[in-house]
């Protein structure tokens, strides 16, 4: 799976959680750009991603993430390391 595939799957998860099927998402997208991406949905997105990819993202990493691209990179890194 390429990084573009990961981005596409992560984007689908975000759209599902936010219930925003047409939301445009790129690597540069940030939570503050998206309606409904509050702290509760942030958790929902992270645990959905974790359960979809079978990985665990640790607390420090979550705190440090600035945009969707960094989440995608974390997923790819952890999948590679498994």
């Amino acid at each position: 799976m390429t990084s573009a595939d990961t981005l596409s799957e992560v984007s689908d998860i975000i759209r599902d959680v936010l219930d925003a099927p047409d939301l445009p998402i790129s690597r540069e997208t940030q939570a503050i750009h998206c309606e409904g991406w509050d702290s509760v949905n942030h958790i929902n997105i992270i645990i959905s991603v974790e359960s979809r990819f079978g990985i665990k993202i640790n607390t420090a990493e979550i705190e440090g993430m600035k945009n969707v691209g960094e989440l995608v990179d974390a997923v790819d890194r952890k999948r590679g390391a498994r």
Partner: protein
Amino acid sequence: MNQVGMRLTELYWLPSADGISDTLKGLGRQATVHVDELIPLARSRLDFVQTQRLDRLLGKVLSGATAAEDPIGLKRLRLAMLGSATLDHLEPGLRVAALRRGIALEIFRGEYGQYQQELLDERSALQAFAPNIVLLSLDARHLAQGADVGMSRADAAALVAGRIEQIKATWRAARRRFSAQVIQQTCLPCVPAAIGSNEARLPGAPAALISALNAELPRHAAEEGVDLLAIDAYAAQDGLAAWHDPVLWHRAKQEISPLAAPAYGDLVVRLVAAQQGLSAKCLVLDLDNTVWGGVIGDDGLEGISLGQGSALGEAFAAFQAYVRDLSRRGVILAVVSKNDLANAQSPFDSHPEMILKQSDIACFIANWDDKATNIRKVAETLNIGLDSLVFIDDNPFERGIVRRELPMVAVPEVPDDPALFASTLADAGYFEALNITGNDLERTAQYRSNAQREMLRHAHTDVEGYLKSLDMTLQWRPFDRVGMQRIVQLINKTNQFNLRTQRYTEAQVEELLEDSGAIALQLRLLDKFGDNGIISIIIARPDDEAMFIDTWLMSCRVLGRRVEEASVNLVAAEARRRGARRLVGEYLPTKKNGMVREFYPKLGFEPVVEKPDGATRWQLDLARFKPFDHFITIKEDFA
């Protein structure tokens, strides 16, 4: 820990709906959504994100409907959820689980940690809400406050007793104000042990204190008329990690992981349904490969797997023991089986390892009608609603047809292994009960006598749409060496759907490989559930201008799917290709093949002769034969 695929948090007993995410998306774009479009989704397997999305759609439907006119046909109830940690993420799971059971649940969520004040203050928003149900979802760390590993045993005991008194005061306040059903969640054992297996030897440790509280709660709850929500037991069964994530506790004070929210909701609503009289009342059992291993009509009393002697037989016996226990505590049992009645009843009467007896079964139906029709008869005979029936069957085809024809009947997805049938029924919680009375213990006897008085009435069901949706393909090929073992097995084992019951050795069957004049077909049926394997064998030999059907047999697993019609079309075409003008068929009666007595006339054959022993001969004029309609693609399967 339960394996993945068998956890409560996955709602694994619910059928998965194809493309549910797209369905939710499509409904989200519709201008108006009707509740009838949402109920089937609520009865499907949903993860927590899908649950939230369904909940949003439900919110739209409910906000458009007023309680007075109540156009949605759901029972409306109000639940107050009071707690000491974050609870809002649990609401969608509660509302969707309620919808699954025909309830529109309105939820009041108390302020974080304010539950005692809200219960006591006569002017609080909670008082105005006037709940029917009060759910106390108190987190373990809150209840274990004051724990200290250095405590003496006496101090720890005093702490537990004091905490129980506080909880009881909360219950009483809730009862006094609202005459509501009070549900107390047990403590989730989510704090790590300080010493290990013998944690109780350090009574002041938080984990020991939580265990002590959980041990005390059942007695007090019973005394006070409060119902427990035993999440400690369910989390232990699934593995704590499926229910609790320490990271989320620290980030958001979510003691129950959002991943477990759909299951949490289901567990709570089971208790509500039980209180409201909405729990299922009757378990409808298939027999072959559900209650015993094998097919009684083909394998006979000696051939079925049941009881000591094999792991499989023991698993079926254990399932029967579980079902009998359900019956003894008030669940009504019924049987719906595709079998001749005498065959279906013979193990109940004569198999030494049968645990279920005929006297345990309130309504016993064995015939060759489709199961949806028979399940309707069960409901009519017992005079209970279809929505209080649960149907258990190992066969995905039968489950599918019943779900489609009778969506109000609960039909669990059972795993292939009978060792898991009992735990699946338990996990699905259809028969949740709060109090067991003497009346419960006598119930089956009552229903049984009612059933004996009542005449069975026929109800028709249109299954064509279902058959179409199955995407069935009948693959046929002449006999070959690859299929030889299965062909010989079917010829020598099939008793029921077998017109002449001719038995052949492998050598005799092999002769047919070389005989190009004869028709020797093996038929395989595929559908959207998968491959049913070789399900029918047909042998016909030329006899002057006719083709004489020497063998026609079929597996009873695929009855009612118009395989017979598709097959006769195929045989007619093959006979014509070989220059035959007529098909000649014969029925030779045996003790077990009564179900195919009318097989040839049903397929349009004309009678030729009937002998005193009951044997009949039939013929079909191929020049006048019009192929039957069916919903099966017929395809030659080239080797």
